[in-house]
């Protein structure tokens, strides 16, 4: 059952600079990496990764536009429409794995950290431009013995990009797989680093999405639907995509160079 439902917001948490988490009860099974289509009546309906996938679900929203702004201004007791969850989730890697989150991409990978059977098999690398944009650090530490933080401006943790930090982490410990979500630029370079170290990865991709349900084809990348065939793709699949890191499509389907 993925159909439209209306839920009441039970908790609102300000996570960091312009980032808000909305919690709500929804009796559906959600795998790490899956997303909802979230409706704010009169405004828009947008895809949002589940940042909490237990009994009380959650989405974590950065205020970057009309729909996200409207979501961030909601209060406890307010209603939102949800449908889903949609998409394939992250598969549980065999053995030790590393979870990489960049910016609000951290929200989407958080459940993939918490799916680890014990704290020693999952390491974490979070990155953002500045320390105030790092979210869920404490939450990650509850599920992992090794949480590394990077900031572009050096205000918190490693001074540099998360990709540079991961490059160093991969040299120190061997991982069966990398799980990642973040801006496409980050993922593009992360893929190169994964290839350099010979590690397979699962990455959550993003494209302009309309139906969210695998029908309309608006969100395709190289003919694959991000909503239904993704949003999680394997590194080797992504590596074969002509459009990854190079182009996306606008609302009409026209190609835009990245």
């Amino acid at each position, binding site marked *: *059952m*993925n*159909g*439209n439902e*209306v839920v009441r917001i039970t908790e609102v948490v300000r996570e960091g600079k312009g980032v808000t988490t909305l919690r709500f009860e929804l009796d559906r099974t959600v795998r790490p990496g899956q997303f909802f*289509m979230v*409706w704010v*009546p009169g405004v*828009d*309906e*947008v895809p949002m990764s589940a940042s909490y996938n237990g009994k009380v679900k959650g989405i974590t929203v950065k205020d970057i536009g009309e729909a996200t702004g409207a979501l961030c201004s909601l209060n406890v007791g307010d*209603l939102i*429409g949800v*449908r889903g969850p949609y998409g394939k989730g992250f598969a549980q890697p065999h053995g030790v794995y590393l979870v990489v989150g960049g910016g609000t991409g951290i929200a989407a990978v958080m459940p993939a950290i918490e799916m680890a059977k014990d704290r020693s098999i999952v390491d974490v690398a979070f990155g953002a431009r500045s320390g105030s944009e790092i979210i869920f650090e404490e939450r990650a530490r509850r599920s992992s013995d090794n949480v590394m933080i990077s900031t572009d401006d050096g205000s918190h943790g490693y001074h540099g990009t998360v990709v540079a930090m991961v490059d160093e982490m991969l040299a120190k410990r061997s991982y069966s797989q990398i799980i990642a979500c973040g801006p496409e630029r980050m993922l593009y370079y992360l893929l190169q680093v994964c290839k350099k170290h010979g590690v397979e990865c699962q990455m959550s991709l993003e494209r302009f999405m*309309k*139906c*969210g*349900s*695998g*029908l*309309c*084809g*608006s969100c*395709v990348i*190289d*003919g*694959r*639907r991000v909503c*239904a065939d993704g949003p999680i793709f394997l590194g080797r699949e992504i590596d074969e995509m002509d459009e990854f890191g190079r182009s996306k*499509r*606008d*609302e*009409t*389907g*026209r*190609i835009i160079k990245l």
Partner: protein
Amino acid sequence: MNSLRTVLARVVLDNPTMLASGMMGETGASLTKVAAAGAGAVVTKSVGIEPRTGYINPTLFETDGYYVNAMGLPNPGMDAYAEEMKLARASKVPIFASVFAASIKDFISVSSKMEEYGANAIELNLSCPHAKGYGMEMGIDPDIVHDIVKEVKGSVKIPVFAKLTPNTHRLVEVGLAVEKAGGDGIVAINTVKAIAISVEFRRPVLSNIYGGLSGPAVKPIGLRSVYDLYGKVSIPIIGVGGIDDWRDAMEYIMAGARAVQVGSAIGRKGLGVFEDVKTGMRDYMEANGVKSISDLVGVANERK
């Protein structure tokens, strides 16, 4: 001999399953993926003169039994679609170009372009139930349908199919108008005009208010439409509406469809639906000693 081989006008399909318009047809690469998944032919998303963004979300309302959607005919416009057709042509299955327009002149322009890009047939969208000035607003009038089909037929060499709306009591008249105008075939049905209401928010869900009903709920309406048309027109009919599995597809064939289009099931079941339908059809035919799928077309009409 390939028991599923199907001929629509002059277009030869390896099997009678087709991708319905509006599903994954926005890009050449996704059409190619659908072809690789086993579809006998693919239909592009409806393409118009100019780029269109479509409606703002929500554009889809979903339940287990049906969808209501109003995408709003988003498309990159006929010029940009050249690139997609170039890619799609690599797929080796016939490509039906779905065309929408607000005037006969524009129908001709877009259809001619799509022919130039290598489309194997035109599918005129005379049936979108929710876009102002397009689709069903023309498609419920037999005279207008006649004129559009006749003029487009006069302008392209490839076969021209008309996709019709069930949102009229004059469906058979419209079908006869397509045939009289020289149309090569009929595609029935497009979605059924519908709305969805949110009780909690006390308002329609879709941003456009009106949308089109699709999925399993519309199958009986599609079957009735094909059945009625089969008795009256002699041009091929392509059945579409709520096909989820081979049995649904076979029902359409027996009602009178020469081929079937699959749309909503792609979201519900994934692209494997094409192979499932084909396998089920083959098994049925083998178990019942049927040599060619064409022997089953319209058989239900013979038992009244």
